[in-house]
């Protein structure tokens, strides 16, 4: 065993990860705040009014980043779940568990903001197009993961069962997306179709990217604090912090 491989697992122990998580959370929270201000400034004051949609297109600055995060977090969750199953490191499962609520929240936000954007532009709050339907099912996948872990009292079984579910789910997400896409294109009954703004002004893209990064930093910060809470609640008396399980 080389020195490199020892270092690799150094932070896999909750005890050593605990302070690191705190540092990461603080840094990412500050970055999230800065990026949010920058992103919203660009989104509202720099990006021009859209020729076709007027001002309402500005919903894009939270809708698209939220949708990106909803999918990204699910994949990251599944990756940590797989790492946990492969290396039997408890911390990996804790991180997966900590990511799920934030992922579900962003999925809901994507659906909500998309719905409000759709009403004035498509004339309806909801259509069964490929993206919306598969995003809705993604929300159910998140709920399933959270519900399964909540239903199992024994931590080890909960962690591992959730991990299997997350991995099966992540394999299914592209399948669900393509099957719904195919279903939708065959049923060309929908009188409205959503197409991205053909060429996006550079400022619009910048605003979107800034908000996406802001959401990403936010997710990391929130997940790190949640992991710290998970560690504290499940380690009994700790010597590495004052953290205690709730009385």
């Amino acid at each position, binding site marked *: 065993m080389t020195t490199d491989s020892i270092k690799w697992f150094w932070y896999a122990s909750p005890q050593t990860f605990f302070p690191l998580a705190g540092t990461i959370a603080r840094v990412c929270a500050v970055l999230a705040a800065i990026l949010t201000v920058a992103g919203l400034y660009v989104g509202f004051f720099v990006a021009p009014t859209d020729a076709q949609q007027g001002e309402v297109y500005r919903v894009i600055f939270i809708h698209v980043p939220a949708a990106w995060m909803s999918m990204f977090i699910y994949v990251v969750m599944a990756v940590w779940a797989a790492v946990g199953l492969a290396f039997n490191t408890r911390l990996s499962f804790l991180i997966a568990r900590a990511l799920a609520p934030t992922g579900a929240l962003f999925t809901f936000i994507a659906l909500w903001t998309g719905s409000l954007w759709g009403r004035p532009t498509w004339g309806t709050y909801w259509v069964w197009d490929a993206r919306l339907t598969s995003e809705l099912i993604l929300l*159910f996948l998140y709920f*399933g993961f959270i519900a*399964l872990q909540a239903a199992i009292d024994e931590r080890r079984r909960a962690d591992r069962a959730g991990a*299997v579910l997350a991995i*099966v789910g992540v394999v*299914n997400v592209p*399948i*669900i997306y393509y099957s719904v896409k195919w279903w939708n294109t*065959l049923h060309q009954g929908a009188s409205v179709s959503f197409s991205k703004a053909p060429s996006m002004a550079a400022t619009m893209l910048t605003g979107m990217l800034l908000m996406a990064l802001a959401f990403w930093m936010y997710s990391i910060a929130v997940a790190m604090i949640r992991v710290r809470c998970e560690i504290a609640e499940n380690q009994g008396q700790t010597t590495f912090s004052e953290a205690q399980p709730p009385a």
Partner: protein
Amino acid sequence: MIALARALVGRDLLLAWRRKSDVATALLFFIIVASLFPLGIGAEPNLLRAIAPGVIWVAALLSSMLSLARLFAADHADGTLEQMLLGAAPLGVVAAAKAAAHWLVAGLPLVLIAPLIALQYDVAADLYGVLALSLLLGTPVLSSIGAIGAALTLGLRGGGILLSLLVLPLYVPVLILGAGAVEMAAAGLSPQGQLLLLAAMLIVAAAFAPWATAAALRISLE
């Protein structure tokens, strides 16, 4: 290994035969659910003909899912499942055999009864074949994927509802392809694409789902 699988399937079939009421109940559920829609939506023939593929497929989905909870429950209760875990037989083969038996008992009857439901909905006669074929290809996929859910929720309180929440999102592609095949045929187009994709899903599910089910069983029985 084939002999082992055959023995396991035979055992499950024998057990199901001894409790015919369980099997019959699932089948009756399928028929009742499919009969509810005309009562709720109104018996307009054109409307019913249009929604028939979707309704039959959703009813098949729900019926297949209801009988999933029983998949491992009986063996788990009397300790047989743990013996299978400890035994020399590869757990993947056990899982595959159980899913196959589930299909024979809860999936195949649906395929056979579906034309009767289609008759109720006044579906055109030339669609019966596509309907039966889509269900024939799709229901084994439902059994395979459902087995994963059943293994994950083994012995949990609120298991049935939780199982539904876990498994229904994974069922969605099968539903879309299966109902879609029949709807394509109804529109006069070829259902070949959907049916081939269903066949592909069947092969992939049959190959990989037992592995996931076995992993889930080990986790649930530790």
